[in-house]
């Protein structure tokens, strides 16, 4: 009798399992058809795709070229090249950012640079298409041409 009871109970369990799988059959599919849905916006704002430097409409950024990100980077990904610029107001020389060079090829996207930046000059964006044909193009210059430091910390 116990044998028959076992069979009946197990059949019920199997039916329960089949119910779960048929629910999955009719569920919305999760596959992303990548090149076709290129314009689709993914709602992952925290996703670390590309490192960018924020520029406002006057072509001004917030990087003071302090070099903390360069020191903190575990892979030597970031290289900051500075220049000395003569200030018109005070008449003294001041160190400003010339080139902010970032190597995607050696970046591990650990985000130590962005968390340590005192000015919040660099942030992450969600773009993830880094594939290019030439290795030298992996070195990116993050600051734009003729950009300057934001005056008074205002955006």
């Amino acid at each position: 009798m116990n044998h028959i009871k076992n069979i009946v109970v197990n059949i019920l369990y199997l039916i329960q399992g089949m119910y779960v799988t048929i629910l999955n059959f009719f569920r919305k599919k999760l596959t992303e058809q990548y090149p076709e849905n290129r314009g689709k916006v993914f709602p992952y704002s925290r996703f670390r795709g590309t490192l960018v430097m924020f520029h406002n409409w006057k072509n001004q950024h917030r990087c003071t070229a302090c070099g903390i990100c360069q020191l903190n980077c575990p892979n030597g990904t970031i290289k900051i090249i500075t220049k000395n610029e003569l200030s018109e107001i005070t008449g003294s020389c001041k160190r400003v950012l010339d080139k902010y060079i970032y190597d995607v090829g050696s970046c591990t996207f650990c985000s130590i640079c962005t968390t340590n930046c005192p000015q919040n000059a660099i942030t992450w964006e969600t773009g993830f298409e880094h594939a290019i044909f030439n290795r030298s193009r992996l070195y990116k210059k993050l600051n734009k041409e003729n950009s300057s430091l934001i005056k008074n910390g205002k955006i």
Partner: protein
Amino acid sequence: MFHFSIVLNCVDKFLHVYFTDSCVLFIDFFLVGIFILVFYAVLALVLIYLERKICAFFQCRLGPMRVGPFGIFQPVADMIKILLKEVIKINGVDVFLFRLAIYLVIIASMCTFGAIPFDRGLHVIDFNMGVFYFLSISSIGVVGILLAGWASNNKYTIIGAMRSGAQLISYELSCGLSLMIIVILSGSLKLSVIVEQQFYVWNIFRGGIPTIIAFIVYLISGHAETNRGPFDLPEAESELTAGYHTEYSGIQFGFFYLAEYLNMFIVAAIASTLFLGGWMPLHIIGWDLFNEIMDHIPPIIWLFSKIFVCIFLALWVRWTMPRLRIDQLLKLEWKILMPISLVNILFMFFWMMYL
């Protein structure tokens, strides 16, 4: 209703005008052979596509989507790939048996394929012992699998083949016993007679509870005979690399693959022929207009939709259950399915006599 043998007779008469009798017989055989081979290959492609799509849907994926619209040419691409692959020569292999195994497997499934009635009069041969023919010829495939495992000179293949032998031979029993229910019910072994009898009520409803039990038992044991789903011990890829066809490559492996898919189709076809009315449309006693409308749908579509339902059930089970252990597998057969189908036959006798 349209009878397919009219067309066949027309072709036969047309050939008789130009050729002698023996020559006509030869041409007939040739045409039938070509028809079966082409149909077999095309059906395998369709089945591979269906299986990949359904499996993907069960796992919340989309399946093949790149080759052609919705990936419908994916199996064609796969087939071309497998035809172009090298057939590797392996040292220490019994070459004759190694090659013979493939043909045994594929001939077994192809012979079974020929006896399925696809339409009114559309079958290669209509034996007066068709059910026995199905059972006997489909068990030749076991010999092929055992030979493949033995001849490969590899421990994984021999373990896979031995498991397969134990599984197929034991599941043959409950498979045959559940088909005997239908033989008792219809009083005939001839497939065309069995199908004609289901004009008003399909066998699964005509025989009441015993046939429903037999149908379920047949689905389980037939599913086990195709070596797939929870019963895929012979080719359990996590334990034995690929079971009995580990050493096969290229088109040799392709034949095993083809036979596996077609066996799935054949089991579903037998289930739908014997239990679900074969190519017979759905008729309800008294509803004459409804019956008339149903007759206008071609019988071949009816058969294929029934087969599709059975295949879908098999895949559904496959993606629900985890793989069984070999002792669980044999316990399921000898302690559960066998007694149930034996008792079921007695039950069927009483059902036939008193109800």
